[in-house]
C-alpha cells in the first residue's frame, strides 16, 4: 500500500508541473506583467514609472525565466517563474496583489467552506439514496414514470434559480433564517441551514436519477434473480443484495469529490455571504487578483489528484478483486 501510494504521488508530479507551466504561460507569457499592472492601475495613460513601481511592489519586476543580472543559483531563483510559480509546490502562495498573505487567508477560509459542503454532501447522499431506493421499489409502474419525469424537470432548473428562489422564500417571505452572513462556532448553524438545504434540493434531480440507474443495473443481475427464485422477500432482496452492491459505485464516486469539498461552492458562498474559499475565489476573479486565482488553480489541481488517488484506494477496499499493483 505504501509503495503504491509513493508511486502514485510520484506519477502525480508531472501533472502538477504541467498545471504549473500552463498557469505560468497563461498569466505571464500571453500577457506581460506590464499589461497586468496597467489593468490593475486602471488607467490607459499610466506612466511607465507607475507601472514599474507596481511591478516592484508585487514582485513582478523580475525576469521571467532567467535572471542574467544575478549570480550563482540566483540566476534561476530570482525570477518570476521561481518566485511566483515554483514556490506553489511547497504551498508557499506568497502575497496577493492587494498585499495579504494568501496561505493564511486560505487556512482561515477552508473551514466555512467545509462546514457547508460536508453536510450538504452527507445529507444529500442520504436523501438521494433513499429516494432512489423508493423509486426502484415502484419500478415499471406509473409512479416510477412520474418520478423520472419530475427528476428531469428538477435537473433542468438552473442552479441559480434554486439559490435565488430558496433565499427569497425562506429568508424574505417566511423570515425563517437570516438571508446572509456568517458567525463563529455554533452560532453559524442558523446561517448554514439554508445553503445546505438548497444544496441538497438542487442536487436531487441529477443525484437520484443517477443512483436509480445504479440500482436498476444491479437489480438485473443473476444473483438477484437467484435470490428471488429462492423465495427471498423483495425487501430483503432490495436492501441486502441490491442496496449494498449498488453502494460501491455511489461511494467511489463520492470519494473522488471529497477533497474538492474544501474548494467551496462558488455561487452558494457568494450569495449567502459565507467567508469560504468559494467566495474568496469569486472576489479574486472580480477584483482581478491574479495571484489568488493562480494559487487556487494550483490548489484545485492538487485536491483533484488527491481525489483520484483516493478513488483508486477505495475501489480496492470496496472490491477485493481489484489489486492495486495491477491498476
Amino acid at each position, binding site marked *: 500500500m505504501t509503495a503504491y501510494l509513493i508511486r502514485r504521488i510520484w506519477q502525480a508530479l508531472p501533472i502538477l508541473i504541467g498545471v504549473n507551466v500552463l498557469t505560468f504561460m497563461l498569466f505571464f507569457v500571453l500577457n506581460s506583467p506590464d499589461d497586468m499592472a496597467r489593468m490593475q492601475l486602471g488607467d490607459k495613460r499610466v506612466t511607465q514609472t507607475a507601472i514599474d513601481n507596481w511591478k516592484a511592489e508585487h514582485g513582478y519586476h523580475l525576469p521571467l525565466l532567467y535572471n542574467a543580472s544575478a549570480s550563482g543559483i540566483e540566476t534561476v531563483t530570482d525570477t518570476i517563474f521561481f518566485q511566483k510559480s515554483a514556490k506553489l509546490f511547497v504551498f508557499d502562495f506568497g502575497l496577493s496583489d492587494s498585499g495579504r498573505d494568501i496561505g493564511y487567508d486560505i487556512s482561515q477560509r477552508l473551514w466555512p467552506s467545509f462546514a457547508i459542503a460536508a453536510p450538504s454532501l452527507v445529507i444529500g447522499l442520504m436523501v438521494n439514496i433513499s429516494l432512489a431506493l423508493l423509486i426502484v421499489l415502484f419500478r415499471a409502474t406509473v409512479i416510477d414514470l412520474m418520478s423520472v419525469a419530475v427528476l428531469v424537470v428538477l435537473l*433542468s432548473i438552473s442552479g441559480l434559480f434554486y439559490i435565488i428562489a430558496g433565499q427569497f422564500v425562506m429568508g424574505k417571505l417566511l423570515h425563517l433564517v437570516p438571508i446572509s452572513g456568517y458567525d463563529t462556532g455554533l452560532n453559524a448553524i442558523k446561517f448554514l441551514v439554508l445553503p445546505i438545504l438548497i444544496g441538497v434540493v438542487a442536487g436531487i434531480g441529477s443525484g437520484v436519477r443517477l443512483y436509480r440507474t445504479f440500482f436498476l443495473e444491479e437489480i438485473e443481475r443473476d444473483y438477484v434473480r437467484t435470490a428471488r427464485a429462492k423465495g427471498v422477500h423483495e425487501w430483503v432482496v432490495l436492501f441486502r443484495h441490491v442496496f449494498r452492491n449498488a453502494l460501491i459505485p455511489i461511494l467511489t464516486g463520492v470519494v473522488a469529490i471529497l477533497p474538492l469539498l474544501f474548494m467551496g461552492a462558488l455561487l452558494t458562498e457568494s450569495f449567502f455571504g459565507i467567508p469560504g474559499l468559494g467566495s474568496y*475565489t469569486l472576489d479574486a476573479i472580480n477584483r*482581478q487578483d491574479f495571484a489568488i486565482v493562480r494559487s487556487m*488553480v494550483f490548489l484545485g489541481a492538487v485536491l*483533484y489528484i488527491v481525489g483520484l488517488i483516493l478513488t483508486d484506494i477505495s475501489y480496492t477496499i470496496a472490491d477485493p478483486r481489484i489489486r492495486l499493483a495491477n491498476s
Partner: protein
Amino acid sequence: MTLVILTTDALLFLLVIGIISFGIYAARREHLRAPWRHVVRSSIAVAALIICSSYLIIGLLDSIHLRTSPTATQVVSVFDLWCDSLRTRDEKTYSAPFATHALAKETVMQADGTVMRVYPRLQYGGAHLIDPVHDRNSDILRTALLGMIQGLFAWTLVVLAVIQLFAWHSRQPFNTALTAVWRGDTDIPWRTAFITCAALFIVGFISAELSQHYHILGTDKVGGDVFYQSLKGIRTGLVIGTLTTLVMLPAAIVLGIMAGYFRGWVDDVIQYLYTTLSSIPGVLLIAAAILMLQTYMTNHAEDFNSLVERADLRLLFLCLILGITSWTGLCRLLRGETLKLRQADYVQAALSLGVRHSTILSRHILPNVLPLVMITLVLDFSGLVLAEAVLSYVNIGVDPTMHSWGNMINSARLELAREPIVWWSLTAAFLFMFILVLAANLFADVVRDAFDPRMSNRR
C-alpha cells in the same frame, strides 16, 4: 444594407450545414439510421425536437447580421428588424408585465401648475387605451383571442399541408391519413407533433399580438422590453451549447482515437495532456482565461472595429475555453472505445493485410465511434446552456453588453429585494432557459437510450 458576418454566425451556419449533410450521410447507413428511427418514433423526442427547433429558428434569424447603412456603426440582425417595435420601444424604467403605468411614482407638473406624485402613464405600454383602468383587461382578452384565432388558423393550414404530404408519401387517400393521424397510429407520432405545434402557434401568435401594444413581460431598469431580451438570449444560449462541442470535437476525436489506436508513447502523452487539463477546476481555468482576455482587450482596444465584434469574439473565446475544459471527457471515452475496436476482427484483418493506418482509422474506427460523438453532442448541450448562465452571473461569461439569460439574471440579482418586488426579469430568463434545457434533456434521454446497446435487447 450590407451583410455583416460575425465569426459565430459563420460557425453556427456551418454547424447547421454540417448537421444536414451528416443527416444525408447517416440516412444511407443502417447502423446510424436505426437509432435515429427509434428516436423519431418516440413522442417525447418529437415534442422536444419541435420545441428545440422553434428556439433554433429564432436563434438562426438572430444570427444573420446586417448593417442598415454604410455609415452606421450599429449592427442589427434579421430578427431585430422583424420585431423592431419590441427593440425600439423603451420605457423610462421598470414597469410590470401588461402595465399601463410605471412601477414607481413620479413628480408630475399638472396643467394648472400644481405638483403631484402619480404613477405616470407608460410611453408605449397600453398607450392606445383611453381609459386604461377600465379597458385594459377586456382589451388584453380581445387581443389574446384574436391572436389565438390567427394561431389556430395558421396551425390548421400547416397541419392540412403536412397530412396531405403524408398521404401522398404513403399513397393513402387524404381521409385515411387524417384518421390515422387522429387515432395516433402512425409510425412517427404525428399527433403529438401537431399538438406541440398547436401549443407553440397559439402561444407565439398571442404573444406577438399582445406585444404590439404591451410589454408582456414588463420592462427592466433602463426600460428595455424583457420579452425582447429573453428572445435575444436564445442565440447566445444556442451558440454556447452547440459551438463549444463543435470547437472541441476535432481535438477530442483526433487525440482520443490516436491514443487508443497507436497506444505506447502516443497514448502516454495524450493521457498526460488530458489528465493535466481536467485536474484544473473548470471554473478557475475559465476565470483565468477570461481575465487574460479582458487584459488583452483593454490593452488592445484599437483592434476591434465595433462593440458587437468585440462581444462576438469574447463569445467565441468562451466557447473555446469551455471546449478546452470539456473535451477531456469525450477524449477519454473515445480512447476506451478505440482500444476495444482495435481488437475487433475486422481491424485485425485489415492490419494483417497491410492496410495503411490512415485508411483503417477513417474506414473502420471513425464510423464506429460516431454514435458516441453524437450522444456527447446532444448530452452536453443542456449542461452548457446552464453553465453560460452561471458564468455570466459570475462575470466571467459572455460580454456584459450581449443579451443573454445569464446577464439578465446578473443584472436583476437585487431586484427581488426591491419594494415593490421586480420579479419579471428573473422569471422570464429562468423560464426561457428552463424550457430549452428541459426539451434538450428529454431529447437527450431518448437519444441515449436509442444508442445504448444494452437497451436494445429490452425493446
